[in-house]
């Protein structure tokens, strides 16, 4: 769920836009460099953006009996790295605002900071740490995707708490309220998105191994050594 147009005071909307801008600009520079060196990357990056948009349209059952949608940035951060996701995530948010009426234009900066910066970086960090600790690909994917989802909503709760401090208990009380509404309810959904990530990568390791090797997710399979001349 993204912050709707007009919900944040103008100063906060501007502040979060300025906070997200360096990350998005860094992502744009990375994309421009990639496209200049490999012009064919334009289509692959466009496909990655479209995949992130479409992934958020897949419904997952939630524990409350209703359904929820994945954020889609966790798998993207693992596959394409957080700087690229900062840009692609912002493009996806712009499309969600103008094609689905999710989010807004003045709140694009705040939503981009949560969805395209904090979520992907937290998820990618969890993925790398889990792999560095010796875990396999799938446990690391679970940690990365679930944390990317949860971190997005933690950040959204903080943004809302900063904008609307509680009348009695200030920022702390407001944070507790917004975390209770937007982040605690997200924990089972984050676990669900983590499981979806595991299933996605399990299928990809079988059906798209060369792509995963090219992206550095999997090590290239060792070529069996040829034996000397036949007897």
């Amino acid at each position, binding site marked *: 769920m993204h912050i*709707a147009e007009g919900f944040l005071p103008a100063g906060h909307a501007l502040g979060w836009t300025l906070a997200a801008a360096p990350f998005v600009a860094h992502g744009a520079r990375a994309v421009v460099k990639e496209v200049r060196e490999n012009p064919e990357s334009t289509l*692959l990056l466009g496909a990655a953006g479209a995949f992130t948009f479409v992934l958020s349209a897949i419904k997952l059952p939630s524990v409350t009996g209703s359904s929820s949608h994945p954020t889609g940035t966790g798998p993207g951060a693992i596959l394409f790295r957080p700087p690229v996701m900062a840009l692609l995530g912002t493009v996806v948010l712009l499309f969600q605002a103008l*094609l689905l009426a999710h989010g*807004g234009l003045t709140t694009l900066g705040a939503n981009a900071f949560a969805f395209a910066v904090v979520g992907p970086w937290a998820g990618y960090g969890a993925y790398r740490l889990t792999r560095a600790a010796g875990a396999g690909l799938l446990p690391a994917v679970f940690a990365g995707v679930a944390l990317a989802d949860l971190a997005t909503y933690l950040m959204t709760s903080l943004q809302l708490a900063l904008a609307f401090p509680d009348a009695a208990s200030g920022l702390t009380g407001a944070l507790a309220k917004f975390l209770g509404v937007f982040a605690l309810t997200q924990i089972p959904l984050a676990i669900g998105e983590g499981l979806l990530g595991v299933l996605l990568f399990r299928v990809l390791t079988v059906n798209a191994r060369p792509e995963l090797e090219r992206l550095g997710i999997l090590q290239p399979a060792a070529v069996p050594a040829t034996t000397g001349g036949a007897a």
Partner: protein
Amino acid sequence: MTGLAVDDAAWGSAWRGRSPGDKLLLCAGLVGCALLLPAWPGSVLVGLAAVALALGPARVPARTFGRAVRWPLAFIAVGALTAVVAVGDGGVGWAPDAADRAGSLVGRAVAGSAAVLLLATTTPMSDLLPALRRLGVPAAVVEVAGVTYRLVFVLLESLGTIREAQAARMGWASPRRCYRSAGVLAAAVLTRSWDRARRMQDGLAGRGMETGLRVLPDALPSSRPFVALALVLPAGITALTLVAR
């Protein structure tokens, strides 16, 4: 029909042929009024103006506009309710100025969302992307966004087809099966998107288009009467609000 109701409305709108810059100016003015003016009567006037323009001269279907505004309304209702509840030593209660704060918050957000929806339901994304280029966004980024926009519809169609096939095989009959099907569905969509991108690249390379996806955008000239409306309407709303206060 593209499969996304807001996009369909934008292509079918009576304002489709108007300059995207003119429409951006109008909607930016209305959003600015929604954010900066007092909610009463500023937000009410902005909301009414946006809805009247969309359903009137722009001829956006009322059903599409109403359905699209449901999503922001859900967030606005939950967010505003949370914002006006006070948590203190005495437990949970309403903040002293709860009604005013809620009214102001809901008014601004609904009016702002209606103004953005006016832009979204009258301007296809393919008209807005060249405007991004004129605002200084690098060409490579605009091209990636353009490819993303075009592939979204292809992938949504694939998603619908695969999901239908899975449903016919009872793939969505239980929560466990739902997760399994969703994982396979996501993987299939991702590999299809890579395959599409690769085949499109091969096709373009075969035609000698290896450095950019240059297309001839529609010529949508600016209209002086429309620009005048885009300037006068927000100014009029501002004046009325200040007089009413």
